[in-house]
């Protein structure tokens, strides 16, 4: 996949690796701060940033020569969100239970 890039990707990989470790440390420390209702939101935001970094740079979604890969990734995320959002819309509005 890196046939199109002539420069060494080593620097990118190490930077992303460091960012992921920092993200883990931040998640861990933030969990002990009282952010009211936002603790879970912050934890999930950091996790999503980390997952995006892994997908874009380690799994080479960024710069993928085959556009079909991006189509598959986006539709997978779309259907996952459909599963989660519709289920939560159901369970979140069940006033009778």
């Amino acid at each position, binding site marked *: *996949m890196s046939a199109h890039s002539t420069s060494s990707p080593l620097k990118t990989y190490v930077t992303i690796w460091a960012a992921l470790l920092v993200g883990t440390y931040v998640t861990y420390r933030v*969990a002990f701060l009282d952010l009211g209702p936002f*603790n879970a939101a912050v*934890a999930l935001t*950091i996790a999503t940033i980390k997952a995006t970094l892994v997908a874009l740079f380690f799994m080479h979604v960024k710069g*993928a020569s085959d556009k079909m890969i991006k189509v598959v990734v986006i539709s997978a*995320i779309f259907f996952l969100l459909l*599963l989660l959002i519709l*289920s939560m819309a159901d369970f979140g509005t069940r006033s009778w239970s």
Partner: protein
Amino acid sequence: MSDQAAAAVHEEGHNPALLHHFAEPEQQRDAASLGMWVFLATELMFFGGMFCAYLIYRLKYFGDFAAASSTLNTALGATNTGVLICSSLTVVLAVWVAQTARRTLLITSLILTLILGCAFLGIKGVEYHDKFVEHHVPGPSFSFENEPIPGHPGQFANPNHAQIYFALYFIMTGLHAVHMIIGIGIFVWLLTLAWKRRLTPEYNTPVEIGGLYWHFVDIVWIYLFPLLYLIDKHK
């Protein structure tokens, strides 16, 4: 036209790694990657169902989940997150050096990945052992009496609701561990390929799609760690 096609096939016939139904190595590589991505999409839905179940029960039994989560060893969980992130780095390095025929570096990266993968499972095993000792494994011997709910003095978790948390904990981390074991199997296979000099700059697709699988398993853990280990830690 057919002569041209025949000539093209003949020309590419020099590359033993190119299957006859692909026009060129690039196309073969893209097809393999795309196939892996479609598989990972199904994996995302597979884990997604469990994350959905987790989400519903966590909102329903929030305090019980926080109480149950507080019995996990957060330090070991955080260490395991770091171990997996490091293994993702060695995997992406393996994919990179496989494209440039650096065999020693490739073998080193693959062995490092295997060591980190086994370290993850070892740490997970220690955590599972602790849970068995504490009778926190769902089943007839499950016991979760008088465990306080964080942030609610004098209130204790409902053992039945805590058991749902531990059932989700063991199913989700257990299936993740099964994926890790399969990933280690794939990387042992990649190591033998590299050892036998079967991976070349022209043909290294196994490393690439094996790497995609490994990174996906890493992403699952990136979500499992905060969701299972870090509920209401501040209370």
